[in-house]
């Protein structure tokens, strides 16, 4: 096969031209972002409202935090999003700016005969012991001590966790690792970890379904998911020793108590914050943008979108059971945007 016919050559050239043309047309227009799955419902809602108001589209792909970090480093998107904040050193090395965009909470849910939503109370150490497989039955003395009024059955505990790597798992394990040395030592905090016991289900809906179906199961889901599906959530004893229910107020309490000003790159974990009303499994989701964006025009458009979202997005955020950033923090965030080089303003 030494010489190809002319037809084949023509065909190959045609393919080349068509693909070049497609590539060029896809790079104009919308602001492109990608990353974390946890805040996806909020970003999607904002994007929709923003397009209606300004005509500028925002294309957000929930490909996962890991993917978001990789893509923004590679410069293929205007902004990345991650549930796990990058450390200051990692931000410096990659030349990225990071700030929190929205706050959400993770809620443990259970399926025990005779236990209503909010009926069960747990504390961090007990929850960690359950997920370590050290407490095996619901009528364990430690659980009874926290729930003297409940009559708990002698039923095996089945731990359900997220099989897919997710920000929800990161928030949940961050909390357990913060309150239990044994958990920090054996499991640690991460988007996917090695669970010592239980079974893994895919997505919030998988965990919820598995929990609802299995008597004696305990799982953890995003707050919005627990509310919308009326799951039997668990109340937690927080750092101040108070019993709190997951709610808008308790998430915000955790965010307000956090010391954002002295956290470089806003790298702050909201797990187990002080304050009488703080829900212990709270976390922010973060945006990443390069300090020296290759496409300055797109970076400017992205910042305009975030500015709009802080100003006008609060209602949509609440409607989806997420928490907007407190105003004091937004001021700090906007100051940090000065690090982004937008070139000549005209």
């Amino acid at each position: 096969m030494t010489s190809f016919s002319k037809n084949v050559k023509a065909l190959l050239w045609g393919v080349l031209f068509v693909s070049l043309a497609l590539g060029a047309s896809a790079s104009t227009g919308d602001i492109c972002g990608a990353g974390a799955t946890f805040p996806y419902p909020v970003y999607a809602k904002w994007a929709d409202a923003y397009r209606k108001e300004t005509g500028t589209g925002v294309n957000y792909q929930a490909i996962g935090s890991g993917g978001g970090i990789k893509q923004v480093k590679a410069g293929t998107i205007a902004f990345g999003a991650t549930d796990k904040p990058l450390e200051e050193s990692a931000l410096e090395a990659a030349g990225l700016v990071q700030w929190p965009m929205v706050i959400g909470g993770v809620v443990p849910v259970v399926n025990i005969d005779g236990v209503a939503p909010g009926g069960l109370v747990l504390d961090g150490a007990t929850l960690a012991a359950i997920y370590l497989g050290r407490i095996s039955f619901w009528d364990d003395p430690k659980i009874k001590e926290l729930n003297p009024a409940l009559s708990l059955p002698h039923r095996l505990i089945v731990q359900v966790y997220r099989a897919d790597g997710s920000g929800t798992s990161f928030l949940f394990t961050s909390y357990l690792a913060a309150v239990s040395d044994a958990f920090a030592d054996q499991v640690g905090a991460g988007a996917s970890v090695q669970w010592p016991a239980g079974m893994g289900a895919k997505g919030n809906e998988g965990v919820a379904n598995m929990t609802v179906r299995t008597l004696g199961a305990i799982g953890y889901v995003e707050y919005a998911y627990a509310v919308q599906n009326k799951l039997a959530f668990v109340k937690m004893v927080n750092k101040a020793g108070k019993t709190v229910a997951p709610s808008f107020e308790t998430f915000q309490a955790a965010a307000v108590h956090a010391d954002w000003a002295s956290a470089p790159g806003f790298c702050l974990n909201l797990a187990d914050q002080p304050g009488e009303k703080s829900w212990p499994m709270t976390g922010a989701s973060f945006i990443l943008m390069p300090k020296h964006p290759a496409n300055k025009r797109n970076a400017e458009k992205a910042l305009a979108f975030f500015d709009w979202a802080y100003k006008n997005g609060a209602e949509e955020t609440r409607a989806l059971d997420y928490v907007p950033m407190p105003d004091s923090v937004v001021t700090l965030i906007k100051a940090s945007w000065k690090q982004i080089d937008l070139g000549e303003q005209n």
Partner: protein
Amino acid sequence: MNAFIRDVSFLSAMGVVVLTAAIVFVLGVAAAPAFKAFGWTFFVSDSWNPVKDVFGALPAIYGTLVTSFLALLFALPVGFGIAFFLVELSPPFLVKPLRVAIELLAGIPSIVFGFWGLFVLAPVFQKYIQPFLIDTLGSLPLIGPFFEGPAFGIGILTAGVVLAIMILPFLTAFLTEVFKTVSPLLKESAYALGATRWEVLKSIVTPSTRASIAGGIMLALGRALGETMAVTFVIGNFHRLKLSLLAPGTSISASIANEFNEATTDLHSASLLALGLILFVITFIVLACGKASVALLARRERR
């Protein structure tokens, strides 16, 4: 025009070879950090800890092999029965509807099988089948450890059953075609000698198609090994080695699908790609075994 068709078909054929080689090469390069970091322990360790960056492939390899083997174990007798019924026993008016039903089964997206397994099959397993197995087989010596409880509903056995249903259409279609190739002269002679249907199946049909059947089994196994979505839903995604078939486990493709998105460290994604390379090698070995057994049996028959 002749030259055009010749060139296009040559390019297509070469394209496949180049593509396969490129995939193996890229997978190998991307997976190298994992093999470098863990060496042989990667194959025998059951630790999969993304937080501490320690990875071992044993539970995923075990889950992949066992679910595929179970799938074959369940699907083979059924597929054999359906194929024999279609070719030898079925009244002519039933043949068409049966074949269409089987072909439709092959067209169902695998995620639908996954949901069905999770919502329909798993509760049945949890309530009836697994408690029964735990009570009866679970206390026996030797095989007891393979049937230890508690009953989760999902797990390696459930994944095996879902996989069996998924490879059934392929296996049945393949066996039907194979059975059709048996010379009617041989069969009619056997019937004339007074052989029963079972004797014809046992002594005429099976021996004369042995080589093709072996090849078909290997192809079906290859299909089961790589199945991802349906398995992810029902296998339980538990990264530790447990012998019990009722316990949650994991498979290679399920691990990759679950974790690749959020693999933030280099070693984590390298380990996932190493899993992919291992699956590639396993599938290659299975297909090679298929080819070898076909060749071997064919040679023996010629003698």
